[in-house]
């Protein structure tokens, strides 16, 4: 079956239960309880959003979030933000290390949290846009949108490991 790509401005969403939504096309076609997911949750946050039904079958793909009407985009963005919980680190408060097990205490947009990085070589990745993605020992993700926008001390602590 060919993939159903849509631009995004031809649908109307109703969010149900945080991460699920009902979708109605302007053509009249309706879908219930769809779960939007990013096809590129690491490299393309606002592109190619797939909508899965309760069986996990894909119904359609929105090419770009930016193509949607602002109100609709905000609703979908809200759904995705609920599903993809990647706290944004705003400050590295403390960092201790022993035998390559790192303990970070960070301030994030969701509060202060302490986590462990088991292997900092595998678990930290810096992208060309200066974004850093970190995976902790429990497989949770954290993001630093731009390392150079953190305070100098945090930069000094993080950059040598990148």
């Amino acid at each position, binding site marked *: 079956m060919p993939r159903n790509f849509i631009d995004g401005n031809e649908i109307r969403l109703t969010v149900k239960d945080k991460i699920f939504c009902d979708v109605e096309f302007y053509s009249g076609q309706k879908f219930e309880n769809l779960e939007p997911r990013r096809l590129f949750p690491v490299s393309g946050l606002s592109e190619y959003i797939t909508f899965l039904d309760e069986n996990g079958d894909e119904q359609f793909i929105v090419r770009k979030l930016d193509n949607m009407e602002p109100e609709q985009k905000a609703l979908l963005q809200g759904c995705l933000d609920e599903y*993809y*919980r990647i706290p944004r680190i705003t400050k590295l408060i403390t960092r201790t290390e022993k035998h390559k097990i790192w303990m970070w205490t960070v301030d994030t947009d*969701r509060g202060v949290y302490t986590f462990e990085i088991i*292997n900092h070589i595998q678990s930290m990745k810096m992208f060309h846009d200066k974004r850093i993605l970190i995976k902790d020992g429990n497989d949770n993700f954290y993001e630093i949108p731009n390392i150079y926008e953190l305070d100098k001390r945090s930069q000094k602590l993080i950059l040598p490991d990148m």
Partner: protein
Amino acid sequence: MGGETMIPKDLLINKQPAPQIHSVAEVQFKGDEKPLFAVVGDLELDSKYGEGAVYVSENKIVSVGNMFDGGFISLDFASIDEIKVKRMYGNAFLRAKTVGGSTIDLMRFTFAAADICDAAADFITKVKAGETVESRFAAVESAFRNMRSFCPKCGRKLPYPNAECLNCQGKSKIFSTLARYIKPHVGTLLICIVLSVITTVAALVPPYVTSLMVDNVIPNKDKRMLIYVILFLLGIYLAQYAIGAVRAYILRVTGDKIIADLKKEIYAKAQYLPMKFYDKTSTGSVINRVNSDTTILQQFMLRITQEAVVQFFTMFGIIVIMLTMNWKLTLLSLIPVPIVVFCSRYFGKKIGPLYHRIWRRSVSISSILSDTIPAVRVVKSFSSEEKAIGKFSRHVDDWLYEDKKVAKVSAIFPAIITFLITCGSVIIWFVGGNMVIETPEKLSLGVLVSFISYTSMFYNPVNFFANLSDSYQNALASTEKVLDIINAEPEHNFGKGSELENVSGKIEFRNVNFSFDRSKKVLNDVNFVIEPGDVVGIVGTTGSGKSTLINLLMRFYDDYDGEILIDDKNIKDIDMSYYRSQIGYVQQEPMMFHDTIFNNIAYSCPNAHPEQVLNAADIANAHGFISRLPNSYDTVLGERGIGLSGGEKQRLSIARAVLKNPGILIFDEATSAVDSETEKLIQDAINNLIRGRTTLMIAHRLSTLRKANKIIVVDKGNIIEFGSPEELMALKGKYYKLIQIQSMSEQVAAEKAAENFE
């Protein structure tokens, strides 16, 4: 309440919550009712960090958190229609659907608590379905045990219960680990040090002789003395360089021995590391550690044990000689030393992180090499040579960028240090020159010339120690990487545990739950029993968890919840080596080594008699094609078996299993990548092999399961059907549907084949 707390002190709980959470919860349990276990989550429902908890008793669940009116919500099991963990990305909900149809989020948490929340949801679902509280609570305890393998000292998670905590090992562990490799060569290294001291003393003599020449021999025109002095100098130089050559040879051999030991140990350790290590570590990274990092470590160890000692003696000797010559000039010459030391410390701090970054870039390069060179056929088939070159070039450029930074720091700092040292010599020339001119009786020209020579010699060791931090930082980066393997927890019961008298082949999975990482549960409460001699087909769609069942049975992964038993004995209590020797495993993509066909078959039994190997090949339907090869059993296969077809490699793989003569056989889609004719040959080989042995066969083509007397149907990590093929056909469930679909597609394929034939 009567003042009596309803929360047992020994409550099974993952961590202690805030006291107010406990106090809200305990009010909800009345009379004899007490919670059996509790799970503390780390998020608020709005996804901010915070604390919430669920308390589960025999018949109700109480969720406590700020988001509920009154701070809690209590649900009887009877009012719950469905309860499950909804895993998302980096977080999850424990979500209940009530009989009334409403959905309630009981708790939100990061993946830190996901496994035990799964266990809690399973507990409620199964108890509600009529299973006993005791049996389900055992599964919950198992999940908690896995979760609670923390170091009692520092609280960090351990790879398995009672494992040694890497975090709590002292800092000296790094040095003691390295010292272990030097220890066997201490005698040789001591000899080298003695030789070094002799050459050092010899090197200190010529400047002293120079002062004699300048002050006495030349002014007195004493030719006889001149010849003696020259001959003496020649003797000293000869001794110095001859002994130096012997020392260099001994050092080279000793260094090679150290590096050989180190490489062997890393490789040996790498063999026993669990699959989880390889899931998270690239091949390139491991290769880099065995090759480059060991070399850096060897160089560093020799620098520390040899050069540092020599340089120290040189420095000490020079200071003593200089002090005896002129203490004032000696103190003057020491002026730059604190600045040099300060600079070197600063240099070390600056360059250390840069070496880490270079290492990361080197690993990326190695990873690309180990990825693309073996896959060169794919690269060529897609004409992707330029793309591959481009990608490699980008990574090399990244490395070059970092290396340039190191080069800059490495070039500037030593230059600064050398300049400071030169300043010291200039000061000596200035002050000493004045003294020779003004008070020649206090300082002669010969002594000044000699002193200048000693000063320049003195700064060699100073320079050495100043730059030592550079190689120290480089070595430290490599040490960390090497220790990452050496200190990694191996599969922990090799050589431990018991052996069974003989393996009859009964296999039992009891409440087994597993996930590779916490983001997705791969096996969910798996329970089944396979009797000795059963031939069991495992079917299901791709990604349903079939191969994971086998991975756990093979003990490639040991960190699952629940128990797997062979002949009623927990496989974790059986010696790993013995255990695996009892299982014949034929993989979907058989791995062959760059060796002869004979050795590839005999891999499972290196001391096998040639006739045993021939017999094994015969049973595996491989003897025919092998004997037709020009070099027959002596044919050397290319890397990963290049030179043989997929079906031929598969039959060699089966021959390996035949030779092993195991009690249990596992075939993981052994015929998935071969044509019908080859499939028949392989199937015949399998049929020859499985007689009387417990056999597990994963198969996409259900036609290959004709010999199976039991079928396990796996779907999304759950065992949804288990029984004889006849029972499952009568059930008309998933297996029935799969058979229907395959029968139709086989019919269509047969019709198409017939049309083409006509």
